[in-house]
């Protein structure tokens, strides 16, 4: 039997997992996000931080994908005066552009610098839009807060067709689909059989700025959990 979208989200929390050991900082996820969501110049719903740690000769680099953490207790939702920012039952934090007044209260409330607001339509190559930009320009995103949606439209369409987000590309965020090193994973953390649940069981992980009480839905793997009893 195929589950309907609402039934599937009843016990669902979609999260993203980034394996810091695998990420090579190629920014393909950033490009994929920009292509999938047609974000304007300067707006990166999926960023990859390039950190250089230590001093010569003991220098290491680490690449850290970031973006909206789709928190379970999102401060952006609490402060939003319009209810434009809201958390869906499946854990995805969304913005209803038609309600948003662009006050930026959410932007200063977000500990992850995940929110953007542009005042006018801008294009990658000057005043003239590319064919893709012309096709996908969305005036409803001007003057309002925007951020990563976990590609909710793709997820919803996939779920509506009975696909499993995180497993089927047609139900999975663009950044995860195109990650060339397999560093990014997506799925339902409430499903113990999902890829993200397995990754989190088998690896040591952390979430960023947890002390803020946001309960973020973005996990970072940093080491193998050698004490873990592997699934058969």
């Amino acid at each position, binding site marked *: 039997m195929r589950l309907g979208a609402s039934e599937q989200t009843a016990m669902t929390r979609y999260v993203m997992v980034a394996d810091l050991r695998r990420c090579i900082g190629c920014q393909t996820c950033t490009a994929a996000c920009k292509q999938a969501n047609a974000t304007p110049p300067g707006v990166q719903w999926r960023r990859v931080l390039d950190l250089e740690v230590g001093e010569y000769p003991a220098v290491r680099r680490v690449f850290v994908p970031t973006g909206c953490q789709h928190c379970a207790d999102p*401060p952006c939702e609490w402060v939003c*005066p319009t209810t434009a920012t809201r958390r869906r039952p499946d854990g995805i934090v969304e913005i209803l552009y038609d309600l948003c007044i662009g*006050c930026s209260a959410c932007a200063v409330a977000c500990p992850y610098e995940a929110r953007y607001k542009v005042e006018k339509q801008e294009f990658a190559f000057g005043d003239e839009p590319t064919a893709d930009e012309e096709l996908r320009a969305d005036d409803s995103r001007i003057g309002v807060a925007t951020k990563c949606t976990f590609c909710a439209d793709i997820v919803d369409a996939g779920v509506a067709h009975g696909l499993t987000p995180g497993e089927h590309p047609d139900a999975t965020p663009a950044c995860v689909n195109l990650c060339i090193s397999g560093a990014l994973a997506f799925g339902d953390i409430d499903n113990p059989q999902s890829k993200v649940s397995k990754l989190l069981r088998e690896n040591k992980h952390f979430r960023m700025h947890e002390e803020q009480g946001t309960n973020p839905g973005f996990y970072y793997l940093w080491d193998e959990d050698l004490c873990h009893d592997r699934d058969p």
Partner: protein
Amino acid sequence: MTATLDGAPRLQRSWDSRAAWNFIGGGAGTGLLLAAAAALPAGWPYFPAGALGIALIGFGLSMVWLEIGRPFRALNVFFHPQTSWMSREALLALPLFALAGIATLADQSFVPLPLQMRLLVTPLASAAAALGLAFLYCQARILKASHGVPAWREPSLQWVIIVTGITEGLGLMLFLSFFVGSPPAWAIPTSLASLIARAGAWEYYRHRLNPRVPAPAVAALSRISLPVHLLGHALPALLLLVSLVAPMPLVPAAVAGLAMVVAGAWLKFAVVTRAAFTQGFSIPFMPVRGRASTAAAADVRPGQ
């Protein structure tokens, strides 16, 4: 452990000077409405203070209106009073304007009004003062709810905002007294007390910031701290003491009041526009690529 500045705290640009003016105008305006209501029993005229207070609050809210991306949807701001302090602030502004506006009109002498209207000034002004205090509290909580800016989410900033608003209100009352007549007897000692309270709240806030917030934010506030103490606390306190013995007490009191207001605005402007560094990014562990790695565990906080 050092790191490149990618992911380091940065000065947020989402709220600029227009947001700062909301906190300045709102704080000074509500403080003035509070002081003016308290001064009514002493016979101090409400009309100029009420008009100026309303104008200041309205100016602050207008600045916010200019800052939002979709100003013609501004009424949506009322939709989320369950958790949003911005919604609560906006909802309080409506009865605040109405009550203070009616009290101000009832107190003026240009248009003849029935005596019964004049009897309403004190209760209306008192209600407006209470709403003003609640409005000021909302402003303080708006900053505290800004989790992305460590200098704003520090709880002690609430007291700075509230005490500064009250101090600015008293300062404006002293300034207006130069034009409308002597302030109540309690105005000078209360102003002195508010100056002490603001200086104390400010120093406690700065003490709490370090090392909880990015160093550039601490530095930005440290830069203005001495001038604010000298020009905004010591100078007005001295002038207020002089006004107790001077032959023309309204002059030093008015200058002191002006200094109290300017210092409050300066302080809030700096907090909103100069100390508003984001938290930045941090990872508590370095990824382990191979078991031989010796730098597995590290708390990486770029720029901090």
